């Protein structure tokens, strides 16, 4: 019987375990990389038809978010501005810039600029911007520091657990609705003061973020 298996076969169980560990790790990494849902695509920063810089407009110039995304307080959908909004200024500034040609074309023709959508809530999720803005959930909570981005990228995972992190503990995030578009604002007295103030808001405004399935999957 001595020559059925070589002596090295004694190491086989350990080798198999190590092998399985690597294969398992590789499979997990592969699935994580290739099978992650597209809505959770953190860092997604497509090249837009116009190299619009939020860092310049919202950061340096200090335009309020709502100057362009004007319906965000009233509508479930936060609108992307029409070319007319752009032309309010750009009929005076950089009127001949070749980079703005698509905006001028759109203004003339009425066809929208083909912006590429970055933040995509899946069709099976109901999300309402106005409800969140009205109860003091800042733009920065979901979109990140847009006012510092030259090219907008997806900053948060926007997975279900991302939503639930806030729905389960809204006091950590909500602020005075007046400060919603102030993306640099943090509670001046630190995190514990934020939670304390947040709890007061949750109580006073009767904030009850839904945690049942049908709250968002209607």
């Amino acid at each position: 019987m001595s020559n059925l298996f070589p002596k090295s076969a004694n190491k086989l169980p350990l080798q198999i375990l190590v092998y399985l560990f690597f294969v398992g790790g590789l499979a997990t990494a592969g699935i994580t990389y290739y099978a992650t849902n597209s809505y959770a695509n953190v860092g997604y920063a497509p090249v837009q038809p116009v190299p619009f810089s939020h860092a310049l407009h919202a950061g340096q110039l200090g335009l309020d978010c709502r100057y362009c995304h004007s319906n965000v307080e009233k509508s479930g959908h936060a609108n992307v501005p029409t070319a007319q909004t752009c032309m309010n200024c750009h009929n005076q500034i950089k009127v001949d810039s070749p980079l703005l040609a698509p905006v001028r074309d759109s203004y003339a023709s009425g066809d929208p600029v083909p912006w590429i959508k970055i933040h995509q809530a899946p069709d099976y999720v109901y999300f309402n911007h106005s409800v969140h803005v009205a109860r003091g959930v800042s733009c920065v909570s979901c979109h990140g520091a847009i006012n510092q981005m030259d090219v907008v990228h997806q900053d948060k995972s926007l997975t279900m657990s991302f939503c639930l992190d806030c729905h389960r503990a809204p006091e950590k995030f909500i602020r005075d609705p007046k400060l919603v578009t102030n993306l640099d604002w943090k509670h001046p007295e630190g995190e514990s003061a934020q939670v304390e103030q947040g709890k007061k808001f949750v109580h006073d405004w009767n904030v009850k973020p839904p945690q049942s399935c049908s709250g968002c999957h209607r």
Partner: protein
Amino acid sequence: MSQVQTSVATQAILDEVKPAVLPRPVLVENNRSHAWITDKVCGVIEGKTPLWWWICFAVASAVASCSVIGFAYLVSTGVGVWGHANPVNWAWDIINFVFWVGIAHAGTLISAILCLARQNWRTSINRTAEAMTIFSVACAGLFPALHVGRVWLAVLPGYLFPAPNANGIWPNFRSALEWDVFAVSTYGSVSVLFWYVGLIPDLGTLRDRFFKRGDKIRSAIYGFFAMGWRGSNRHWVNHEMAYLLLAGISTLMVVSVCTIVSFDFATSLIPGWHTTIFPPYFVSGAIYSGFAMVLTLLLPMRAIFKFEDLITAYHIDCLCKITLVMGTLVGYAYLMEFVIAWYGANPNEGFTFVNRTFGLYSWAYWIMFTCNVVTPQFLWFKKVRANFAWVFILTIFINIGMWFERFVIIVTSLARDFLPSSWGYYSPSIVEILTFFGTFGVFSVLFLLFIRLLPIIPMAEVKSVTPQADVHGKHS
């Protein structure tokens, strides 16, 4: 096993009473030698694949394809292809699950409880019974996994098994269905381990025999799974300890798994389900159906392979007696449910049982009652127990009856609950019927592979209960 030590006083009484000496029936007939046992059992694997095996395998595969097609259709189309809808939202999926998981229990009882109770007659049948357990659990597991429709969700972390996931959700630990996930998966894995540990010495035997015949490939395959078994003293000590520990763990599962399965129903508020009798009722039903299935499988196998000397008439007799006990317990539970419904004086509960017996589904109730309560009564007679054709037919009826038991419990209670406005009638779709029919093929394919590739009788264990292994006559 050492002889019972008796005190002087006891001995005096025994001397006076002179109890009759009842010889235990031999477990291997015709005083077969150890070499004969090895040759007989290994011969099945070493011989040429018989024609009947190929025919059975082809038929079983064809039947199994019904399940494959049924499940593929379900997953690609949606759960609507099955017949259940309001108010009967649970139907053949859970009926078939409970049916198969129940059958599994006999294997565990034979290998674990009878091992701890030192019932030596278990030795020649436990391998087959455990194989039946594993394959039944596999068939049972198909239904809960696939009834969700989107099966990939069932394997993702957070849906069935608790693990951190991107959806931030967690299974509900207060739900009996979640307990089921743990109960059945633990049951499946422990059963596989138990079976495998028992197989190791026999795999070593096969490795050596194939090596001697010069079949290097098979020798290496069996040798790989024998994990270097040499039959040394130290190997045997470790093996027996591992086997004993697994027997202890499995013993708990004989009782716990079907108890938890019964909680799926007992923890709800539906009349006919919400009863405390459910755990023992389900456990005895499970063991009952399992013993019937063991007999259904063993009798043809014994005849085909001419194992009459190893699986003796005494073995069949023992199995029949346990089947009779369990069948009678199940019959008692059926009647006791009526007593409780009457004594509890709850009008809904009372109505449920009257409706079961005389309502729209009374045909199912009476099939169940006849098959499960009347059939086993024939086993009181020694002549019936010794007539294997009869035993085989009776066990088929019990198998049918136990499937109908689950049908009656699940469907009648849902079809007629509290509100007459939400009453309904359930009938299965052709997809459900074919899917269930196919699981018999899945089971048969696995079982046929088992009898072709593995020693169906645990050689080492059978040898240990022969007189040759007991030269000093001290083993009980």
